C-alpha cells in the first residue's frame, strides 16, 4: 500500500505495544529498586505478589472494560463510582431483608442478582437520558455521579452498611487454578467484552458511532439504543465489581467508590483508547489496569506513600497522552497549533 499506510501501522504498533513495554519497564525498575529500598525481604516479582496484584486490579479492571466500550462509543461515564457504592449497599443490605429470611444461603444469588440489576438500572437511566435528551454524556453522568452518590447517603447517612455472609466470603476467597475469584471474574469480563467489541455487530457499530456519528446515523444505525446498551453494560460491570469486592469485605462506607471513575478512565486512556471515541480495545485497557496497579504496588514496595503514588500516576498519564499526540502528529504532518 502507500507510504502513509506504513507510517500508520508503525505508530499503531507503538501505541498498542507501548503499554506492555511500560509494564515490563515497571517490573524491571521495581525489581531492581526493590533490592535496595524495599521495606520487606520479599522480592517484588514474587509469584504470590503478582497473583495478589491481579486480584487487586479486579475492582477497577472490571469497570474499565465497560468504560472501554462506552468511550469507544464516543461517550464517558463518570457515575460508575457511585453506581458501585449503590450496588454494594443493595448486595449487603438485601441479605438482611426479612422477606428473604427463609432462603438460607440461597439469599446469596438473589442478592447478587438484585445488586447487578440495580447497576443495569442506573446505567439504563444514564443511557436513556443521553439518548433522549442529546445532552453530552460527560454532563449527564457528572449529574448522575452526584445524584447517585446522594442516594447512597440517603440510605444510611454517614454510617457504613455491613453484613458478613461467611459462605459468600468463602466463595470470594476461593481459588481455582491458583487464581482468586476476583481475578477470574476480571479475566472472563475482559474476554466477554473483547468478543462483544471485536466480533459482534453491536460492537462494530459502537466503533462506527464513536468514529463518525453522522456517518453512522446516515447508514441507518440506531445510535441511541446502542449507546443505551453500552451504559447498561458499564452499569452492570460497576455492580459486578461491587459484588466481587464486597463479597469479601462485607462492609460499605458511603464514600466507597469515590474517584473510581477517574482511575478507570486513566486505565482506559493509558491502554490506548481515544478520548474522542472510535478507537481502542480491551486488551490495551487490561494493560492499562495492570500498569496502574503495578505502579501503586511498586511504589508502595519501595516505601512511597499514597500521595506520591497519585502524583506519579498523574504525571505518567499526561506524559503518555503527550507521547501519543506526538506520535500521531508526526505520523501525518507536523503542523503547529
Amino acid at each position, binding site marked *: 500500500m502507500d507510504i502513509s*499506510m506504513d507510517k500508520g501501522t508503525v505508530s499503531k504498533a507503538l501505541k498498542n505495544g507501548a503499554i506492555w513495554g511500560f509494564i515490563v519497564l515497571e517490573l524491571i525498575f521495581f525489581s531492581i529498586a526493590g533490592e535496595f529500598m524495599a521495606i520487606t525481604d520479599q522480592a517484588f516479582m514474587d509469584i504470590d505478589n503478582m497473583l495478589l496484584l491481579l486480584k487487586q486490579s479486579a475492582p477497577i479492571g472490571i469497570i474499565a472494560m465497560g468504560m472501554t466500550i462506552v468511550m469507544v462509543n464516543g461517550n464517558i461515564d463518570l457515575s460508575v463510582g457511585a453506581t458501585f457504592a449503590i450496588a454494594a449497599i443493595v448486595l449487603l443490605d438485601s441479605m438482611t431483608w426479612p422477606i428473604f429470611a427463609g432462603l438460607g444461603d440461597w439469599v446469596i444469588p438473589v442478592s447478587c442478582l438484585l445488586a447487578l440489576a440495580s447497576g443495569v438500572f442506573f446505567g439504563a437511566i444514564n443511557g436513556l437520558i443521553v439518548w433522549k435528551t442529546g445532552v453530552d454524556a460527560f454532563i449527564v453522568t457528572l449529574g448522575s455521579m452526584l445524584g447517585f452518590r446522594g442516594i447512597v447517603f440517603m440510605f444510611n447517612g454517614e454510617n457504613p452498611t455491613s453484613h458478613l455472609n461467611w459462605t459468600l466470603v468463602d466463595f470470594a476467597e476461593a481459588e481455582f487454578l491458583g487464581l482468586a475469584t476476583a481475578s477470574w471474574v476480571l479475566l472472563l469480563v475482559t474476554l466477554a467484552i473483547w468478543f462483544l467489541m471485536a466480533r459482534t*455487530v*453491536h460492537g*462494530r457499530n459502537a466503533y462506527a458511532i464513536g*468514529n*463518525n456519528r453522522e456517518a453512522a446515523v*446516515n*447508514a*441507518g444505525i440506531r445510535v441511541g439504543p446502542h449507546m443505551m446498551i453500552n451504559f447498561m453494560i458499564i452499569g452492570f460491570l460497576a455492580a459486578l465489581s461491587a459484588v466481587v469486592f464486597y463479597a469479601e469485605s462485607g462492609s460499605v462506607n458511603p464514600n466507597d467508590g469515590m474517584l473510581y471513575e477517574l482511575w478507570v478512565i486513566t486505565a482506559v486512556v493509558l491502554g490506548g483508547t481515544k478520548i474522542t471515541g*472510535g478507537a481502542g480495545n480491551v486488551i490495551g485497557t487490561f494493560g492499562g489496569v495492570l500498569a496502574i496497579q503495578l505502579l501503586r504496588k511498586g511504589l508502595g514496595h519501595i516505601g512511597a506513600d499514597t500521595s506520591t503514588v497519585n502524583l506519579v500516576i498523574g504525571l505518567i498519564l499526561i506524559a503518555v497522552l503527550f507521547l501519543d499526540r506526538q506520535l500521531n502528529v508526526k505520523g501525518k504532518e507536523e503542523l503547529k497549533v
Partner: protein
Amino acid sequence: MTGKTPVLRLENIVKTFPGVRALDGVSLSILPGEVHALMGENGAGKSTLMKVLGGIHQPNEGQIIVAEEPTVMSGPLDAKAKGIVFIHQELSLAEELSVAENIYLGELPRKSFGRVDWTTLAEKTNAILKKLNVGFDAGTRVGDLSIANQQMVEIARALTVDAKAVIFDEPTASLTDAEKVVLFEVIADLQSQGVGIAYISHRMEEIFKITDRISVLRDGQYQGTLNTAETNEEGVTQMMIGRKLDLSRNVSHHELGDVALEVRGLSCGDLYSDVSFEVRRGEVVGFYGLVGAGRTEIAETLFGLRDPSAGTILIDGQEVKIHSPYDAIERGISLVPEDRKGQGLVLGMNCRDNMTLPQVDDLKAGPFVSDGAEIAIFDQYRDKLDIRTPGWKQTVGNLSGGNQQKIVIGKWLSMHPNVLIVDEPTRGIDVGSKAEIHNLLRDLAAQGYAVIVISSEMPEVLHVADRIVAMYSGRVMRTFTSEEVTEENLIAAISGLGGDQAA
C-alpha cells in the same frame, strides 16, 4: 437522448422556508446513461434541491418521479433503497474502521449471537472493489487511504444497492489530476451500465469534459438545460449569473515600490524545496500549480505555521526568523487562509470581534478592551471594502462567502501588513462576488500593498496577478510576467513539462 425513460425526474419542485423561496418551480430529468451537470452559484438552490431529493426536506409543491413512479422520499436511507444514491463532497466515513465495515455500515451481515459474518462481508466487499478496480482490499483501514480512495469507498457504498441514479456533489474538490482520471473512469463505467449521473461542480473544464447536458439554477429558479456539445463556458456562466463576466488581464500601471518580501532557497522537508521569489510593494504575485504542488505549504511557512528546513526569508531586506503566526504578524505578514470557515474566522463571533481579533490587545483603554476603537476599525473597513452586513453585531457565520472573505481581508488590512497572502481568495464564493474580490485585490496593490495570491483557478491568476510563479511538485518551474504568460505555457509549466528552471 429522447425516447428513453428518465431514471429520475423532478417536476415543478417548490420549496419555501420562512421568508425564502429556495426552490421555485424546478424541473429536471436525468436519463439512464447520461451525465447531467447541475450548475449554479452558491445559494442558487443546488444543495436544497439535493436535500429534497434525499428526503431531508419535503417539497411544498411538485413531484419526484423515480422510473415513472411518483415517489415520496422519507430520508437518505429511503432514497438509497429507491436507487438514488449520493456521493457527498464531505466524506462520511468512519476512519478507524475497515473498508468493508464502512461500505456495509449499518448493514453488517450477521451470524448467530449477533456476530459479524466476516467471511461474507469480505467476499461481498471484494466483489464490489473488483468492479471499481481499486488498489486496496476489504480489510484496509479507511483512515490509511488517500482522499481519492476514500471517495472510492463512498462510491462502493453506492454500488451495494442497485443504483438507478448517482448524485455526485463536487466530487473532485480535493482530488489530484491523476485521481480525477480514475474517478471519471468510474463515472463512465456507471454510465455504460445505464445509471443516470447527476454531477454538481463549479469546475467548468470538468463539466465540459464529462457531461452530456447542463442544467442551470439561479436564485432557486430553473434557468434551462443545455446540451454540453452545443454551448461553451461563457454561455453557461451567463446563464448562471444573468450577465457577462469580465475576466480580462490586469496589469499594474502604477510604479512598483521596493521589494517587501524576498525568499531565498526556501525548503520544507519533502513538501517543497529551493523556492525563491520576491514580491514588491504594489504588485500582485500569483502562485499557480496543482493540488500538492506546495503552494499552500509555502504560505504556511511564511505565516509561521511550518518551520522551513532551509532557506531565508527577508522582509524589507532584513532577514527574519518566523516560528509562529505571532512572529509573522509582528513582521507584517498576513495570511487569508484557504479554509475560510475553519481557519480564518470564528464563525460564532460577530463581525467586529472577528475583524479586530489579532489586535484586540492593542485596542485597550486601561485594562479593558475599547469598544469604541473596535467599532471605529470595523466601520472604516466595512466602508473601504464594501462589506454588506446589517451591522457589526451580525454573526459572521450568517454572512455570504464573499462578505466573510472581506471580513478576513479587512482584519489584516486594519493592521497595515507588509505582505498580504491570500490563499484561494474566491473558493466557495459565488461568481458575482468573485469579481468584487478580484477588484479588491487589484486595488490593494494599487494602494501599495504587496499581495500574494495562491489559486487553483487559472482564469483567476491570469486575471489578478502581475507575475505568476508556476509550481510543480514542490518546485518553482518558472516565473512568468503577465506579458509572457499564456494558458499553454502556464499549463506546461505546472505539469512539469516545460519551464526555464526545471530541475
